[in-house]
């Protein structure tokens, strides 16, 4: 009896939802993001020296082995092949300061996978961006090395190791726009070169890997909020705020994490403007020079709430 049913080719297939499949697998998406990150990797090697590649390798090695080990211990299928652990490792390395100690990098990598991702159940279940969890942990655990910046090595005439934001916060020195655009300033590995980030980010947006609304809303939001404080005479011009620190990197690569960003367009606008508002408030009024990491983590925590309140109207349903 069973054989007869199997041989008969039914034209109508009965399956449960989802019915529409995209050929974009998570493996492919991760690969595209890694490609988009290559300009940042190159800019970090150019500006801070080729030895920074060791930080990247260490970070990737430890995120991958942490993921493998946790899956083994929990007796679950290995998810190493979807590439998300490699991507987390690469992202974490790019937001660490240059010449950061390798042992601390390893600690951050393990924390970002174990506490940031696997305790929630693995890919797709985490509340917070794993790479940012790792960085926040390192920031709290080793505050001094995490805020020690080195001078750029290329071109040789870099005058100070301080990031544009800390130079402004503590010494009231405003860095020129051009070095910030090129990447010739102090800062984390991947965040200094605006042009490299924008190149990678535009690639991601064009390939439709990330939702364009997220970087767009964060950047325009920052322009508006920092513009308000600029007119009040409290802060440098908005362009400085966009190019300085991790705002561009965060808006293109961190806030756009598929798992930890809202599902609907309306929700994304709230999310993006929320991040922009928090970043500018922390930068202008906070004790820390930079606040992109904490802003994104805070808004990540709000994503379930945002999703709940921006459920789209069901076709034929009534607006209450």
């Amino acid at each position, binding site marked *: 009896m069973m054989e007869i049913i199997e041989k008969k080719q039914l034209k109508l297939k009965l399956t449960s939802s989802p019915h529409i499949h995209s050929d974009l697998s998570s493996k492919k998406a991760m690969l595209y993001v890694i490609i988009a990150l290559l300009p940042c990797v190159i800019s970090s090697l150019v500006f801070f020296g080729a030895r920074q590649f060791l930080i990247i390798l260490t970070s990737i090695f430890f995120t991958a082995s942490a993921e493998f080990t946790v899956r083994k211990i929990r007796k679950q299928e290995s998810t190493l092949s979807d590439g998300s652990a490699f991507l987390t490792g690469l992202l974490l390395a790019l937001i660490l300061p240059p010449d950061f*100690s390798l*042992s601390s990098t390893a*600690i951050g990598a393990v924390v970002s996978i174990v*506490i940031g991702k696997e*305790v929630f159940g693995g890919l797709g279940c985490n509340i917070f961006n794993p790479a940012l969890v790792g960085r926040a*942990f390192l920031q*709290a*655990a*080793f*505050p001094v090395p995490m805020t020690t910046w080195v001078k750029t090595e290329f071109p040789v005439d870099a005058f100070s190791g301080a990031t544009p934001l800390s130079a402004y916060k503590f010494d009231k020195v405003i860095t020129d726009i051009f070095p910030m655009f090129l990447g010739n300033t102090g800062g984390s590995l991947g965040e200094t070169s605006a042009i490299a980030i924008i190149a990678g980010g535009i690639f991601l947006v064009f390939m439709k890997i990330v939702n364009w609304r997220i970087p767009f809303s964060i950047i325009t939001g920052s322009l508006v909020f920092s513009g308000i404080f600029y007119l009040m005479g409290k802060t440098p011009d908005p362009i400085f705020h966009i190019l300085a620190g991790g705002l561009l990197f965060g808006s293109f690569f961190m806030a756009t994490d598929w798992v930890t960003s809202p599902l609907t367009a309306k929700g994304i606008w709230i999310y993006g403007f929320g991040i922009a508002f928090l970043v500018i408030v922390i930068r202008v009024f906070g004790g820390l020079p930079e606040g992109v990491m904490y802003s994104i983590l805070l808004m990540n925590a709000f994503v379930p709430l945002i999703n709940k309140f921006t459920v789209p109207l069901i076709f034929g349903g009534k607006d209450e």
Partner: protein
Amino acid sequence: MIRISYWREFVKGILDQNPTFRQLLGTCPTLAVTVSAVNGIAMALATSFVLVFSSVIISMIRKLIPSQVRIASYIVIIASFVTIVDLVMKARFPELSKELGPYIPLIVVNCIILGRAEAFSSKNTIFRSFLDALGNGTGFLLALTLIGSIRELIGSGKIFNFGILPAEFNPWLVMILPAGAFITYGLLLASINQISIRKKRIKKEKMIEEIIGKKKESVLLSEVAS
């Protein structure tokens, strides 16, 4: 009502119903003062002292307290013992008292003490209340010592103020910050839950095996009989 043995009455507070890891009570001092093992022990000893004495007193006068004002009466009794502890610590261990700060007076509202008063000593005999309070106090002491030791070891490289880790070890400051308390507590809870789930599963499997074994025996017996 099933009466369990005096020994079980004491032990249950340490393992099966550990106030910190199984009842999840008293988390406020657990998270706040376990920066070092010594602080944890001091806090737990102070709490245990109040717990034991207030449990005994409440159990003694449990039939005299009208149920409408019982919580207020418990608080008065607990607060008297907390005042004793607070003053003794201020006089004898001024440094420790300063370090624990407001958490000693806050023992008044510690939910382990009020919880045991309401759930146990207001319904049980004096001796049973004493054992129950002692068991819970010991469980709390062990839990706080464990959390305090872990945080002190990783957060400052020492344990009971003795340097154990090599000098090259770079202490993780986060562990002596509030975030470290939450991380340590969460991971410990997760591993303890994991152990108890595994224990339960093994117990269940054994029971099932026993039942199957008995059935097979009875089938064999019936076959032999026929």
